[in-house]
Structures are given as C-alpha cells and as structure tokens.
C-alpha cells in the first residue's frame, strides 16, 4: 500500500466518485430495483424468477442482490447471440464481442446511453491516472470487436485529449509515432508495454527524447514486478485498470494516484467477492471470485455475472477521497481460461481447432511462455502415420494448416510443433493440457 500519491489527485466526476456511503447504498438500491424490473422482461431471467419464486418487489436494498440468480459465460453462449438483449434491437448502436469456447464468440450490446456511461467510466480512471485534456494518447490496443480499444478511445475523447489510434502491433511504427508525435500517454496491454519498453531501450530512445509520462494497462493480468520493470526502463507511471465486455468493457475499476488497488465504480456496479466453490462471500481482504451486477446498463444488463477472476476487496478509506471499494489485481482464474496477449483463450478452443485437421492426434500440449516481453504460445501435436509425409512441403503445410485453424478460432498466432508419437505425457485422470511458464501472480 502506498502512503504517497505518485501524481496529482484528480477526479473526473467528483460528485459521483465521492458519494457518502449511505448515499451510495441508496443510489445502488434504487438502480438495482430499476435494473431488476428491466431484466424481468428478458426470457432467461423471467424463467429463473418464476422457477425460483423471486419477486422483483422483494429486491429493496443493495444487499438484496444476493437473492438474485447468477449469470455465467455458459448462459451467454446458450442464449447466443442476443438472448440477453433487454431493449428493442433498433435501440442498439453498437455490438462488441469476446472469444468463446466453441468458436462462437459471445456478444454484448450497447444503447447510445450505454456508450455514454461507458465513456465516462473510462474517463474517470484515465483522469485518476493523470490524463489531462492537453495530452496526446497513443492507443496501442486492438480496436474491433474487442472492447479494450474502443472503451479507452471514447474515454479519452470524453476528457478532450488527442488520440493516435495506432492499434496493436507494428512495434517499430509505434516507436516512431512516440518519437515524432510525442504522446504523453500510452494505452496498451502490460505485456506489450514491456515489449515496447525493451524496444525503446534497444533503439536508445530512453534518453528523455520521448514525452511519455503515463500509461494505462488492462486487458490481461500483470504483476507489481512488471510495473517495476517498465517504470525502471521508462520514466512513466503505470496505472492498472480492469473490466470485461460482459460487464461493460474497461471502466469497471481503475487505480488512483495512490495506486493501492482499483476503485470499483460502485455507482454503476455492485461487486461481490465469493468463494467459487460455495458461492458464499469471503471476508474483505481474502481472495475470492468477483461477481458483478451492472446497475445502469440498458441494452445488456447482467445480474451477478461470474467473472471467474480471482481477486481481493479492500474497504479501508483511500486518501484520494473516492468512497468506493477497491479490488486487488486479478491473481488467477477459477476456470482454465488463459489470457494470452490480451486475448481470452480456452484450451477447449485449441482442441476444437485440432479436431478440424484430419489425422491430428488427440494428444496435444499448449505451452505459454514469455521469452522476452511478449507471450508466446506453442502447441505441440503428436505426429501420426496418417499425417506424416516424406515431403517437406507436406509437413510444412500440415503445420500451417493447424496454425491457421487455431488462428481462425482463437485469433492467436501459435507456433505449432510436430513431435514424435507418444512423446507427450499421458494422464490417467484429468489431463494437463496447458503449461503456463509465465509468472503472473
């Protein structure tokens, strides 16, 4: 916990961010009642309410959230694409998506008002982490269906700062833009930032030539060690933010100048921290699975969404004046999802990709490592007589084909290794298909 702020304490919306606890609970209760009334029209919730005899009229206080049903990723998939939509389709102005376990992504929708709320929430954590209207920001996040790029883009616009929409990749070009256009703020995933920091050092640009002062990282778990490593290489302050598309995208929480946990924007979300096995609350400061209820979303409000992200909650007052609960970094998952270069990947997706290639053995091993700063995924596949060829070109095509299928389903460029038959470990019980060599927690 930091005793001193690392930069000036700023609030984008001081009134909303420093509500007195009673006022905050009252606002949450009012918004919870409204959202429960709205989702009562969504078939999924209507059926559960009827089956479990939940009467929306019984939901009065914010604590009553515990009487509501959970929503899981599987529920989203079963109601693909838009079973959870709570407004007529013509009120939707935007769809975003995230990867799913079966090749089909899950989708979320936004009304015009949702986009405005989302922009403000992003503006709040950006300003908490130093952003000012005269700054220029380089967004090195992918745009597209992924919510990361757009969330930050609209948040910066809301603050009134300038945007360089560099999107991800093309590291040399990123460096050139930093050098020539002098952005003060960098937006990307933390692992890409490490990679950029290395590239900046190699290019000898860390001699005060760059104007970078602030960085905002999200989209994947990272560590204090990574923060220290980046801040050692570059004279910047790195801020952590958190979000997921099912809840709204980035903007669920973010660090303030004290960087002692991420303030959850409780006027828009009710957070719970539960034991993933019993689904009972854990004590403050103890690790548990985060569960969010979106209070103000119109198009796609989810009740008690199980994030599968493990973290801790802190309620001690923060010197910044925000009255909201803070969350720790995400320290793990309560399922087998991997976050690789900011992309969510389930081992089952890779298995599905392998199944599409005839003759590829059902034995495979996914290895994730971080040799430099960037995540690397390799998938080892056992060679079988059906797929072997005496011609090099045939073998190379097999590798390319497997890599292509993995890319089509997960969006990841994986390195495919062909290994000898029966060289991968066999398992009597639950197979270990993933070896994650990164130290992430």
């Amino acid at each position, binding site marked *: 916990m930091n005793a001193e702020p690392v930069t000036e304490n700023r609030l984008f919306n001081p009134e909303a961010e420093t509500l007195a606890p009673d006022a905050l609970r009252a606002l949450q209760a009012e918004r919870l009642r409204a959202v429960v009334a709205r989702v009562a029209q969504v078939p999924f919730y209507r059926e559960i309410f009827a089956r479990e005899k939940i009467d929306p009229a019984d939901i009065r206080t914010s604590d009553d959230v515990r009487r509501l049903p959970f929503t899981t990723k599987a529920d989203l998939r079963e109601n*693909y*694409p*838009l079973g959870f939509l709570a407004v007529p*389709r*013509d009120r*939707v*102005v*935007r*769809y*975003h998506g995230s990867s799913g376990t079966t090749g*089909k*992504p899950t*989708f979320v929708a936004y009304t015009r008002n949702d986009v405005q709320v989302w922009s403000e929430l992003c503006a709040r954590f950006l300003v908490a982490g130093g952003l000012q209207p*005269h700054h*220029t920001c380089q967004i090195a996040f*992918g*745009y*597209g*269906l992924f919510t990361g*790029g*757009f969330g930050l883009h609209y948040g910066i*616009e809301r603050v*009134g*700062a*300038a*945007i*360089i*929409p*560099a*999107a991800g*990749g*093309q*590291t*040399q*070009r990123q460096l*050139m*833009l930093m050098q*020539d*256009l002098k952005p003060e703020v960098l937006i990307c995933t933390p692992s890409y930032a490490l990679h950029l920091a290395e590239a900046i050092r190699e290019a000898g640009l860390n001699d005060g030539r760059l104007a970078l002062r602030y960085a905002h990282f999200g989209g994947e778990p990272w560590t204090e060690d990574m923060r220290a490593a980046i801040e050692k290489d570059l004279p910047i302050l790195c801020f952590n933010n958190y979000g997921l598309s099912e809840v709204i995208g980035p903007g669920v929480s973010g660090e303030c100048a004290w960087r002692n946990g991420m303030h959850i924007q409780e006027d828009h979300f009710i957070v719970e921290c539960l034991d993933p096995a019993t689904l009972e609350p854990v004590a403050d400061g103890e690790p548990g699975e985060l569960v969010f209820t979106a209070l103000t979303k119109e198009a796609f409000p989810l009740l008690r969404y199980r994030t599968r992200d493990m973290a801790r909650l802190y309620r001690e007052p923060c010197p910044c004046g925000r009255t909201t609960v803070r969350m720790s970094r995400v320290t793990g998952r309560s399922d087998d999802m991997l976050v690789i270069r900011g992309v969510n990947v389930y081992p089952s997706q890779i298995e599905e990709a392998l199944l599409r290639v005839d003759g590829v053995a059902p034995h495979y091993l996914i290895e994730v490592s971080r040799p430099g700063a960037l995540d690397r995924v390799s998938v080892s596949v056992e060679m079988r007589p059906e797929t072997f060829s005496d011609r*090099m070109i045939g073998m190379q095509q097999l590798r390319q084909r497997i890599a292509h299928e993995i890319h*089509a389903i997960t*969006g990841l460029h994986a390195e495919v290794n062909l290994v000898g038959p029966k060289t991968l470990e066999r398992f009597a019980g639950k197979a270990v298909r993933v070896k994650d060599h990164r130290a992430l927690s």
Partner: protein
Amino acid sequence: MMDEHWSDGDAPLHPASAPDFLPADQRRALQLHRLRSVVKRAYEHVDLFRARMKERGLEPDAVRTLDDLRHVPFTVKTDLRDTYPFGLFASPLSDIVRLHASSGTTGKPIVVAYTRRDMSVWTGVMARTFAACGVRAGDIVQNAYGYGLFTGGLGAHYGLEAIGATVIPISGGNSERQIMLMKDFGSTVICSTPSYFLHLIEQAAEMGVTLADLPLRAGIFGAEPWTEEMRQRIEANSGIRAYDIYGLSEIIGPGVASECSAQCGLHVFEDHFLPEIVDPETLEPLPDGETGELVLTTLSKEAMPMIRYRTRDITRLMPEPCACGRTIRRMVRVAARSDDMMIIRGVNVFPSQIEEALLRVEGTLPHYQIVLTREHDLDQMEVQVEVTPDVFSDQVKTMQNLRKKIEHTLASALGIRAKVSLVEPLSLQRSQGKAKRVLDKR
C-alpha cells in the same frame, strides 16, 4: 422492419444530405467564402504555403473568385514528408483531438490531424456518404474496414453513429467470423474493400451460406480502385447493391466523394472539398469532362488545410445533372494513378518502403521483385528476393529464418503480410535503366 426505410432509387431524403442539394449559385458562394478563409488560414499558419505564395508574389486576398485558385501553388505528397510531422498543421497541438497516418513513400508515414471541428466535418461527410447509399437508422452495419491509424475504419464508424445505425466494429480479417456475424446478426450493410467482399462471397459459398438469402442488402466499398465488372460480379453473386466511395487521408479520409442510388459517378462533397482536374504533365486546369489528375482543396479543414493537393488519382468530373437530384458534381471512379503506389487489400504500399525493409534485414539491397496476384479474390503480395552468397546457408532452418525475418520486417513496415520467396542469384529479370520491380498480375 428495416425495409420500411429502404427503397432503391427513391429513398426518402435523409436530413444529413441537405447540403448535397444546395442550388449551384449558393454552393459556389459558400465555396468561395470558405476558400478565401482557408487560403488565409494556411497563409497565416503554414510556413511552406506562405513561402510558396510569396515566391509567386501572391497575397491571400489574391483569391477573389473560385477561378483564381489556378494561380495558387500545389501541395504534393512529398510536402507532407518534408514537413513531417507537424509542419503543415494550422492549429496549435492543444486543439488537435485526433491523429491518423497513412503510408508515405519511405519509412516515415504521412501524419494527418483533426480538431474537434474537423472531426465533426468528417463525421458529417461520412453521414452524407451513408445517406447517399441509402443507409439509415435501424440498419445493422458490419464495418470491416480496418480500425486504427488507417482512416477507413474510424471514419466509417463515426459516420454510422451519426446516421443512427447499429455498428458492429468487426474490423478486417477473420472471414469465417464475418460470415457468421452476417448470418447471426442479420447485418443489412457491410463496409469493406471491394476485393475483400469478393473474398467473403467465396468464403460464404464454402460455408454453405447463400448471401442472397441473408438480410444483407448494401455494400459500401472503397479504399482501392475497382471496376464496373467487379460491381456486376458482386451484385450478381451476393444480391446486394455495391456502392463506391472515395477519399484519402491527406484530405480527410473516406468522405470526399460517394455514389448515390444512381450508382453512376461519385458525388464530390464539394462544399468541403473543391475538386479540380489538371493535366498531370502541364499542371494546367482542364475543363469539366476531360480526364486528368484530381486536385483537391479542403475548404473547411482547420488542423491541416490542404491547398490544391495533387491526389495522383486519374479521373474526370461529370458536370451533367444526376438522376438523384444532387447538385454537387460527380467524378468517375478512379481507375489509375500517376505514380508507383500500389494498393494492396486497401493498404497503400510504395516499392520504396519494401526496399527500405530489405536493406534493413540484409545490410545491402538485394535484387528483388514484387509480384501482385489475386487469389480467392484477395490481393496477395509476394516479394521474391535473390539469395546472395553472404546470406546463404546449407541449413534449411537458417534459410527459413531469413525468410521469416524478411517477412516479419515487411509486415512491420507495411502493415500487411507479404509472402517472401528466396530465389536463386541472377534468376530475376534485369532491365536496362529503370528496374521493373513490380509485376502486377491482378
């Protein structure tokens, strides 16, 4: 439900389209007013422009009529490089809210800037583009232009938001997912390069999806030259109407000109972008109807006004009135360029960029040739590089690594993937004088 808003040929006038119908004399008065103010703005804030004006003994008030523009100096692409990055900015950096970039002829990109007002002009002309193509509130639009520094993705995105359409910001690539979304979400409109859409038609067929049976009914295609034959193929094979749009980041991005329901020439939004056609040799203005190089002047841009910018695109203006009733003039679709720029999958690539990348990997410039083909309707770029004794190895893996390194460097420099083939020394054709570096088989 969507169909209520749509009737080909006589779609009700969208409010955003009002400026398209200004009576010609009013439009000319507005153009002149804006022209004088932009020339003054550029003269006061852009050193390069002021110096060139002074060279010719011109003061800003020398522009008294639209015709006087012919005396004003041109701006060319290399001016953007020579004044990189901020030299042509006419606004203080604190007023800039957006920066975009596109390929330059060498390693440095072309950087363009927008103030808040420029963003609203851009959004406005993109809304007019979509309105002219019959896109309305309630449409579900799959935006498959790439998002990022390229102006295509974000330009279309803001225009669609202004029209009130639903945006699926899918960006480019992942064709299977594109088809899946079209089917599962019932997208009514797609924005992409025309060649990418041709590829999607093929992808759909492979997946057993008949595009003509889906709600998709219009495609807004741009960012690369295409032909009337391609339009016929697209329309016949997918059951949609295919519209051509035109723009370039130096001027604003997409939103410079757009087809309308008549699908016969692109209306130039000339209240913001004043078109001229000049002879590319003599640079003398040509009368309407004659073919030459398109020169554009931005009439309302604040951050980066462009005065008489030579686009290098060859076209002609069509002065005759359009069936749709718009009073703004049309230009015919762009079929050729007057420089060596290649457009590959919507990305601008100059051979000089490729030379730079090869030089970086090998230390010396090897003999190389760029071969452009179209496989499954997608542009493919192959760079054939002669192996020199310095880089040859008896190990296949060393050679593969060299190939990968070149591929990686090219992808990093160009933003698109190119296939690299190592070929034997002296196997590429040598030519006298100017090397024939590009073999375009498309």
